[in-house]
């Protein structure tokens, strides 16, 4: 199992943070454009899922699969969106994404007076990046192929 990349968006759709561990295909656009596309895409998936639903939803959109990757989505009540791409064999990792928010994002960004939870996380937030890398690489879904 492989972890590809992570996006964190705030409620205004700004990409706060992007990290990739393994990515074989880059998009043919700048990173900024890609973040906008991803955010707009998630926005329409969310509204699509709500409108199409035959029953009342609680959490709404959770994940989707293609033939080679799976996109996991987790949104907090404050509108922070966590998007993690993994390969297809990964099951439901909602609790992992929640943990990533509650133990890494809250502890090293929200509780850091020099960082802001709604602004772009810049590279001087080393401790956040370090802890995040440590958290992801200790996951059972992060395998040897990822490290190679």
């Amino acid at each position: 199992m492989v972890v590809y990349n992570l996006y964190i968006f705030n409620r205004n759709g700004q990409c706060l943070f992007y990290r990739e561990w393994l990515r074989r295909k880059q998009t043919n656009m700048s990173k900024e454009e890609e973040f906008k596309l991803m955010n707009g895409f998630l926005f329409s998936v969310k509204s699509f899922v709500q409108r199409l639903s035959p029953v009342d939803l609680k959490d709404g959109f959770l994940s989707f699969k293609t033939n080679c990757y799976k996109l996991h989505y987790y949104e907090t009540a404050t509108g922070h969106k966590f998007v993690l791409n993994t390969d297809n064999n990964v099951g439901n990792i909602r609790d992992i994404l929640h943990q990533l928010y509650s133990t890494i994002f809250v502890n090293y960004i929200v509780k850091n007076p020099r960082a802001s939870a709604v602004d772009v996380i810049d590279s001087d937030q080393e401790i956040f990046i370090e802890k995040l890398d440590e958290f992801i690489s200790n996951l059972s879904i992060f395998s040897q192929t990822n490290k190679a």
Partner: protein
Amino acid sequence: MVVYSFYVINRSGGLIFSYEHSIPKIELEKTFSYPLGFVLTPGDKGVVVQFGQRDGIKVGHTIIAINGVPARRNNIDFSSAPPTATANDDEPPTSSLTNSYDIIEYLSDPSHYPVAIKFGRTRLAGNEKLILSSIFHSMYAIACQLSPELNSSGIRELETDQYKLYCFQSITGIKFVALTDLKQTNVDALLRRSYELHSDYALKNPFYSLEQPIWCPLFQQTVQQAIDLLERTGSPYA
């Protein structure tokens, strides 16, 4: 194990076939006293609950009827209703002439209480299904573009907390989409089966023109049979 609905989308994102197998009817009627406690806003499908979930009435539900009289989007007309519904109201003569109200204005008047309101989830209208299928068409394409891995297809399986959407795209570019509950298995087999049925009953029909909506009764019947079989036996093949 429930299959909610089934759609076929053509190569350009147009909806050419839609079949609703078993959409649950979500409707609730309750009698309320003043004040109502919901935040209501008018919308293009009727008056929608924006805030104040209680008694099983959720945010997003619309007002379907008041005192047994069906609502017409944001308005309600009591003049066609049986006189018992409004006879006890001491209304000024002007409004008794028309008896037509804006729902939100009607519900903000304490003299109209107690009032029985029926709330529910509205079904997808035909136009809305067309819009959603073209949205899905572009979502499918963007999912390939944003892939971190080479040679990705579009969305095959989309999961929410209450239902799953499965999509199978044939080599000819036609998408077969099924909405099911979370427990339904073997939906991929159903979609491949419906591709066969599409080739047999829709494409071989001399009155069918390509990329146009499918009005073949046999296609509808056989799709329905395949879905029934899948729900009963776990396989769409007899």
